[in-house]
């Protein structure tokens, strides 16, 4: 049997898992591991400028590829810096394996230098965690971590590794297991066929159906099956913020995103429906508005891999716990067989439903209104320009705020895994590092980061990492000179008192990105938008930072009326509500 040090065992285990890249930052507790990493070239290491960014990069890598992202950080501050990224991944069910260094075993509990209880700190934001006690535990723990992170409802797993067990002079027998049994963990569940049949008969008989799908369909690789089902049925479909791209965004059956900033037609269709087929979505409070008022006439079928998601927020009529692919395959078989039996009467009822929906769509809730002589760029137009001039099939990451909602609403996504944002935790600072993780996974693809001047400054140091690894990301800074989303709430709920939602000392972004070795443009008028954006996208192998000065007064609409509103209660424009 092979004899390896703990540090080598870690790197070998990652190689065995087929890991091609990890994101990290060195420090005392992980020096043995870094030394082992240095002496091989199968696993590439990306040196970030902050551990939070390392976790977001691994996260962007995972969201775009479907493979787990791997992070390596040192103990103490390295580990705590990673916490925001772990929480971000946890909220969106993203598979990560985070290796954190820990002080030597005999020092644990003594408040030694750079000691922190990482397992304790991360406990509520991980799917699972391990504190290793010996080098022999390394291979099985890493195997388990990958299995747990990627199966069932995915999520981040932390492995905390005391320095002494990675000592290069202490050798252990190493063998990486092909499979591993975890007796208390059996995530693979098969949706109950009886329930599926019952659901399908309700679906077939519905008069005002809506399909509502979320991030789970993308994570579970069920997009093609969902598209087939939706097209065969001819039903309207809406996606959550996390689910955009699961169904082609430019298709006429697509009603747009639903929820707090969802489209008028999507929210109205949900509210008036008599049957909701929810797949891989979790009835988040940003979707339902006031729960007791949620979709009063609808029966609900809910498909999810996580039993705890079912009837957590909203009580459902037909729960189906199972992998999305298996459930959708069975549904498709039944629907394919039954669709031919549709009566003229049923077809007319569906046509009437579509007529009602087209009426709502006719409101044109996303219409951008501008005065003819106004030269100021609207933030929505910045997003539209990026969509049109990038060819429309780029990977797009975003930060958090108004620009995120504008990106979700004004940039259609025809494919899954192309829209990458922090939906659950809403982490400002996510966008740039996530884009870097995507670009590293797909060096030849176009990657765009749509950000705001507030969010970008939360991880702007990563521009340095971008120069080191030559990442030609296009950063569209939707610069409204304000923490726009905060300001919007203050306009709507605090009579316009803008408490600390201004940034009065914004940097010269063009000068700043040039200092990092990149190209920067500033666009100030609507006439410059198209040519300058075109130029930005023409610089294929450079990172280009496009600082687009936009109308600071613009709000994101539609927006739910709250509190005590239902899904049909929306602000459509400033002062105009349903």
């Amino acid at each position: 049997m092979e004899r390896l040090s703990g540090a080598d065992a870690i790197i070998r285990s990652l190689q065995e898992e087929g890991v091609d890249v990890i994101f990290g930052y060195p420090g005392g507790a992980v020096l043995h591991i870094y030394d082992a990493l240095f002496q091989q070239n199968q696993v590439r290491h990306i040196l970030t400028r902050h551990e939070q960014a390392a976790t977001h990069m691994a996260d962007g890598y995972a969201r775009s590829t479907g493979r787990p992202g791997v992070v390596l950080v040192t103990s103490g501050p390295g580990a705590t810096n990673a916490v925001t990224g772990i929480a971000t991944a946890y909220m969106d069910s993203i598979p990560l394996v985070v290796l954190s260094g820990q002080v030597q075993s005999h020092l644990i509990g003594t408040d030694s230098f750079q000691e922190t209880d990482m397992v304790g700190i991360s406990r509520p934001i991980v799917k699972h965690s391990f504190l290793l006690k010996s080098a022999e535990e390394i291979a099985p723990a890493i195997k388990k971590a990958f299995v747990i992170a990627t199966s069932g409802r995915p999520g981040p797993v932390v492995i905390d590794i005391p320095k002494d067990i990675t000592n290069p002079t202490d050798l252990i027998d190493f063998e990486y297991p092909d499979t591993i049994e975890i007796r208390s963990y059996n995530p693979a569940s098969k949706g109950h066929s009886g329930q599926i049949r019952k659901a399908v008969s309700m679906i077939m008989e519905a008069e005002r159906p809506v399909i509502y799908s979320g991030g789970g369909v993308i994570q579970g690789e069920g997009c093609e099956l969902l598209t087939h089902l939706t097209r065969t049925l001819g039903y309207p479909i809406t996606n959550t913020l996390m689910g955009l791209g699961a169904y082609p965004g430019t298709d006429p059956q697509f009603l747009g995103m639903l929820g707090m900033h969802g489209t008028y037609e999507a929210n109205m269709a949900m509210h008036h429906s008599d049957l909701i087929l929810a797949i891989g979505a979790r009835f988040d409070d940003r979707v339902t508005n006031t729960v007791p008022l949620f979709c009063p006439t609808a029966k609900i079928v809910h498909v999810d891999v996580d039993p705890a998601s079912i009837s957590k927020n909203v009580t459902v009529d037909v729960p189906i716990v199972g992998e999305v692919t298996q459930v959708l395959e069975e549904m498709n078989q039944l629907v394919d067989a039954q669709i031919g039996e549709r009566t003229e009467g049923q077809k007319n009822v569906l046509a009437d439903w579509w007529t009602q929906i087209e009426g709502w769509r006719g409101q044109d809730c996303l219409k951008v209104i501008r005065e003819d002589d106004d030269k100021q760029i609207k933030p929505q137009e910045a997003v539209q320009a990026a969509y049109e001039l990038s060819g429309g099939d780029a990977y797009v990451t975003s930060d958090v705020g108004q620009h995120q909602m504008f990106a979700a609403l004004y940039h259609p996504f025809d494919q899954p895994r192309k829209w990458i944002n922090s939906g659950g935790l809403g982490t400002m600072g996510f966008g740039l590092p996530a884009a870097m993780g995507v670009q590293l996974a797909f060096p030849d693809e176009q990657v765009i980061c749509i950000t705001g001047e507030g969010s970008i400054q939360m991880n702007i140091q990563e521009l340095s990492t971008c120069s080191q690894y030559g990442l030609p990301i296009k950063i569209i800074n939707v610069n409204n000179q304000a923490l726009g989303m905060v300001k919007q709430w203050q306009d709507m709920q605090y009579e316009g008192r803008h408490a600390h939602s201004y940034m009065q000392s914004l940097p010269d972004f063009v000068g700043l990105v040039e200092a990092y070795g990149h190209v920067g443009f500033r666009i100030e008028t609507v006439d410059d938008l198209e040519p300058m954006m075109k130029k930005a996208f023409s610089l294929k192998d450079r990172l280009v930072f496009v600082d687009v000065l936009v109308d600071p007064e613009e709000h994101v609409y539609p927006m739910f009326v709250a509190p005590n509103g239902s899904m049909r209660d929306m602000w459509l424009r400033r002062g105009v509500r349903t």
Partner: protein
Amino acid sequence: MRRILSVLLENEAGALSRVVGLFAQRNYNIETLTVAPTEDQSLSRLTLTTHGNDREIEQITKQLNKLIEVVKLVDLTDGSHVERELMLVKIRATSSQRAEIKRTADIFRGQIVDVTGSTYTIQLTGTKDKLDAFIGALGDAVIMEVVRSGSSGLSRGEKVLAI
């Protein structure tokens, strides 16, 4: 409604903290909690009593089941079950009261496990209600200290919680 959940947990460092952390994190309440290794040293058995409506209990059991180290779980309240709690009570027992306290202990089948000139320590087992009733029955006797183990329980008859 009060519920008794019985959980088989991997007997590993940190497993218990995940259970307790889950309750804190999700704003569920724990009334009592007992835990000890079982005859199989790789497993701990945990009994937990909590309050909640059906929906809350459903969420609690689902969330507990999601913890990787939870091997099996049963809501004992769903069926008939045996529930016991152990209590030790130290009571001020001076001459005039000694006989009365002893009588009360006998009625509740308590045992006096420690005696001094001025105190009795009484051990009592039973359901939560019985132990509560005993405390009530002590009347104006001075209770110096009470320690209760929290409930343990299992299903009646053939039904077992095992792997």
